[in-house]
């Protein structure tokens, strides 16, 4: 059994099942972004201008707009969050976990050396990556934890 801690430190973030980035321009309307989040089945869109990342808009941001009954007519740049915590392609899974835990983020855009987004790392992907390390434990479970029958079946 390889040492999990070592692997987390050594393995690049790309191993933790990142989502494909969904990229929009700053002038895209909020309305369009809402529909895009749904159609693409992703939890965030990255806002890019001239190939570099300028903002992120997540489903949490969408929830806040829905709750405040804000108009969805304006461009996404008005409501996107500009302070983006990213992770570089050459950084490790352990680093991503640490950064997510510190900031309470559920996802981190992955960027290459030029600051160009190549993916989005999320908690679900990291959980999947960890589960892969314990295949015997996770995948060999009996289907229902409460399924120990107390009575012998049949006659």
């Amino acid at each position, binding site marked *: 059994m390889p040492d*999990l801690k070592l692997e987390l430190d050594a393995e690049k973030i790309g191993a933790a099942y990142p989502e494909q980035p969904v990229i929009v321009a700053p002038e895209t309307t909020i309305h369009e972004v809402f529909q895009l989040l749904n159609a693409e089945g992703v939890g965030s869109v990255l806002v890019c201008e001239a190939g570099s990342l300028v903002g992120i808009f997540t489903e949490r941001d969408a*929830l806040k707009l829905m709750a405040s009954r804000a108009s*969805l007519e304006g461009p996404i740049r008005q409501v996107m969050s500009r302070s983006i915590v990213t992770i570089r392609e050459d950084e490790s899974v352990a680093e991503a976990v640490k950064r997510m835990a510190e900031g309470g983020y559920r996802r981190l855009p992955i960027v290459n050396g030029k600051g160009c987004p190549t993916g989005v790392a999320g908690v679900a992907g990291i959980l999947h990556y960890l589960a892969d390390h314990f295949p015997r434990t996770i995948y060999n479970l009996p289907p229902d*934890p409460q399924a120990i029958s107390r009575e012998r079946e049949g006659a």
Partner: protein
Amino acid sequence: MICPDCGYENIPGADHCDACGQPLAPLSTPDPGTDIERRLIEEPLKDVGVGDPLLVAPQTPVGEVLQKLVDAKVGCALVADGDVLLGIFTERDALRRLNTRANELSQEPVSKFMTEYPQVLDVSDNIVYAVHAMNQGGYRHIPLLSDQKIDGIVSVRDILSYMTQCLPG
């Protein structure tokens, strides 16, 4: 392994009880290979430090539920009649089922938009079951019950921070 029905001590890995014929396969949880695996298999979900769920009644207007999710800084609400779970309403449901129509639908009851019969676990179930369900089902939250009544909620983030705390160093 001890038969839960008659108490007979069987050899490890037996499919059926030698004394009464009771099936024993569900008792065969896999061997833990590492310390973290052992903890996932042996420790119950209540040890993860499960949170208090946000509870809403089924007739609550969905617009109000959205605001409660924002105020409570959580990603899902449990729709409940008293402490009986009826469904779950998550950020994802808001985006999928309300999307750009959140304003016009805000007075509709949350029960119209919730997911009924969500995957649940018991607080006494072991952590590994939550990892499995989240990984396979893609769930981000799993309501926890005890005696069929709501007793907590566990999120992917709770599990992830538990697992990473278990790591050495």
